[in-house]
């Protein structure tokens, strides 16, 4: 199962980076979302993955899943939503300001 998790993270990272290297705002935002998924799963998996263990304390449980990365990732998910939203707004603003959604500066404006 570790192989599946690792390859998923790798795939999401690769697609995310590829999209972020595009030249328009929308693919960049989608790419950032993909990288956010990959990062969140990465942090989560750093606590080692197990199936079917409770994260909730109880008398019957003998072992638990690691709660710490889960807590970290939980806030990370919410914050990455906030950041994506800011980026979306910046992209929209840039689109209306410049009239197109290209991300690179023009040559003459490269100063």
């Amino acid at each position, binding site marked *: *199962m*570790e192989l599946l*998790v*690792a*390859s*998923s*993270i*790798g*795939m*999401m*990272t*690769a*697609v995310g*980076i*590829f*999209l972020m290297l*595009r030249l328009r*705002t*929308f*693919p960049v935002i*989608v790419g950032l979302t*993909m990288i956010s*998924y990959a990062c*969140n*799963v990465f942090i*989560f*998996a*750093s606590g*080692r993955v*197990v*199936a079917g263990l409770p*994260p*909730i*304390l109880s008398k019957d449980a003998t072992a*638990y899943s*690691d*709660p*710490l990365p*889960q*807590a970290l990732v*939980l*806030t990370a*998910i919410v*914050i*990455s*939503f906030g*950041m*994506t*939203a*800011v980026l*979306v*707004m910046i992209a929209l*603003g840039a689109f*209306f300001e410049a*009239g197109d*959604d290209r991300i*690179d*500066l*023009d040559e003459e404006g*490269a100063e």
Partner: protein
Amino acid sequence: MSPALIAVLPFLGALLPGLMIRAGRNACATVTGSVTLLALIGLLLHAPAVLRGEVITARIEWLPQLGLNATFFLDGLGLLFATLILGIGLLIILYARFYLSDRDPMGQFYTYLMLFQGAMTGIVLSDNILLLLVFWELTSLSSFLLIGYWKHLPEGRQGARMALAVTGGGGLAMIAGMLILGHIAGSYDLTVILQSGEAIRASDWYLPALLLILLGAFTKSAQFPFQFWLPHAMAAPTPVSAYLHSATMVKAGIFLMARLWPVLAGTPEWFWIVTSAGLITMVLGAVIGLFKDDLKALLAFSTVSHLGLITMLLGFGTKAAATVAVFHIVNHASFKAALFMAAGIVDHEAHTRNIKRLGGLRHLMPITFAITTIAGLSMAGLPPFNGFLSKEMMLEEAAHTAPWVIPALVLLGATFSVAYSFRLISHTFLGPKRNDYPHLPHDPGFGLWGAPAFLAALVVLIGLMPMTFAGWIVEAAASAVTASPVTAKIYHWHGLHSPALWMSLAAVGGGLVLLALHGGLDRLWQATPRPEGKRIFDALMGLLTRLAGGVTKRLHGGALGQYLALATITILGVSLYAFFSGTHAPGTRALQPIEPVMAAGWLALMAASLGIAVLHRQRLLTLVLIGVVGLMVSVGFAYLSAPDLALTQISVEVATVILMLLALNFLPKTTPAVSSTARKTRDWAIAGAAGVGVAALIYALMTRDFAFPTIADYHLANSKTLGGGTNVVNVILVDFRGYDTFGEITVLGIAAILIFALTETLLRPGPANDRLRNWKSDMPDAGDRHPLMMVVATRMMLPIALMVGIYIFLRGHNVPGGGFIAGLVVAIALVMQYMASGFGWTAARQRIDYHGLIGAGVLIAAATGIGSWFASRPFMTSNYGYFEIWPLEKFELATAALFDLGVFLTVLGAVMLALSSLTRIAVRAGQTTNTEAFDMQDKFQQGDK
């Protein structure tokens, strides 16, 4: 008064002028002066004890782990300098009150002055060299503000920049030198370092430390080859020049050399470097000073020259020379401050400082003439003034120092010093009265001449009775400098056999000759080409700026993809290096079996991800696929024992897709294919390599056990007993790591406000707004924008959804749920109303605005944290208890739940503010909204057409 308080008082005083200026200029100056006076009194109360040889200390632990403590001490040297700084500071405050014109913002001036005063006092009272460095850099910064006070003058701005670049740069070098010094001594406390002179001088690191520290001291004290910044700093208002260049800023370097004298002096390196820098500076400054026509420029070069003299004396490394240096510090401060102020008076009254346009002022300004003459003759080193005493002692020391070139050059410097002093007096005040002054001058009121007159009186008194008026402080300070008891012997008459007498006479004679020949010499000087410090400095700065610009342009040229690619390649390279330069063993942790369900989910995720990459130009389809990926991630969380994450991920997923859909409404629906095949291949290679790298890294991590004991066990063991909850993830969020969560919800709130602000700028008139108004939808509208079925369904679901949200919130402490998830769930329930019934209808029924929710959330979380103070516990300590209220069963109440309520409100407010901002843009873009339920009216209107 504690030395710490003396150093802090001016900083506190810096807050007052801005307030007091509203009560008028006199009130402002009085209050500012009172603070300085208070500090001065506090200081002088210690004087008897310090003169007895005691050292007053104050210690406040600040960052003991770094060896950085706020420790202050007051000994003879500190007392001397602090008295100069505060005493002359007081006179400057008085002088500035009458000097500044009505157009100059006086509150600002006094604030800068007090900041500077505090920084200087801090330097001379610090017992910790790291603290000293902090104050040192503060003087660079505050002097930048003071020198550039007349912001409208380009010379002022340039002079301030140059001073900051030179002294700030030297300060950076000094930080390195001080750190080495502290490292050798094993402590950053000056008192310890001063005891470790032997060890420091014997260390291999002595020379680097010496060079770096001297770099700091020389730049600050304008020693050759850094002397060029000081004359340009003369663009400052005269009170600033008088303060910075007589008693304070430039004396900081001298102070530091004196302070570290017992540690650093006495070696050949010290002797040659310090003596020659001082000697060159002294002669150079005196020669250039003679040919300056601007009164302040003349005084500036004279300052450079005298600082060189003091530096040279410290460089000699003998006790007697150090004592003379200390004495000359006192004398120079008194006559130079008086001269600067007198020059300021001339400028103020005659509206020019150009000596060639002045002359004959003694008839018009007798008081100023008297002050200038007394101070000027002292500067020339004539009896019976104080400058004479220290100059005689200096000549005596120099005469006995080998090689012969030293006394010869000193004599040359002294000759020019006499010449420019005489020129200052005679060409400004003597001669016939002229009738072409830019403004007919006359003596000003007491406010302006009071301060320099006081200093001139000191010049005379010290000159006549040196032991009574200065002997004691010179002894105390010199004892501190040399770390051994010193008895000062200050005489007027050294006897006929003394070389100093003959050297003095030669200097005065030579000075008179130079003055007589000044006209011819001046023409020669003006005709001789010389290297100009400012031009070299500007060229150097220009070169650096171009270099920085070139590097920036190459690395940061405006192509986002380029830096991202560079960053990715760099990280990959570093990681590969780390991988191949270490040793590795295969992972030992047992692999988990692959279940068919998991494999199916994995397939869906991989296919959707690949689909996004291939089909990303069709943006709507991309969003559908993003939804698939997000869903699979959340299923994965659920499967891998993280129900909280699964809940969060799925609700965030909904919000993200809605957000992107709203944005996509305006953006083009497809991405044009512009990348070349080569570029795509390159990008795929980079992305693929990064993906493989990340996958390998996490695989390696997952197949190995923890390298260090995990702290998760602590949280598992104490979640119930300390936090009162069984959902460990939630307890960590709201209790163990509550402070982090507090930071995170604050960030989320800021992000939402930022989105709101961005929306506001879009909605304001401007090109973006014009485009928005003329925007035409490129998609066909739906036939029914608010379908009846959907409206009814969402309204019926609203109470249920809210109930689910509240339920998830309440149970969060013990089973999966909590404020984050509940906030998202409720937000989605509300967003559904917007989607189904329209913006207008929903907005009309919205009672609380979302900013308020965010603010309330953060405040509630903060108040919960502060609440623990009232139980005498640290910030954010939680508490819980069990209560039983009939007819309910026993239940638990925890303060963490209140904190979670803050989280809930912030998340709800942030998500709603983000989404409703997008809706506001849509409304501005001309999309209609309905205020009536079910869109009925809209339909009828359409039917009528």
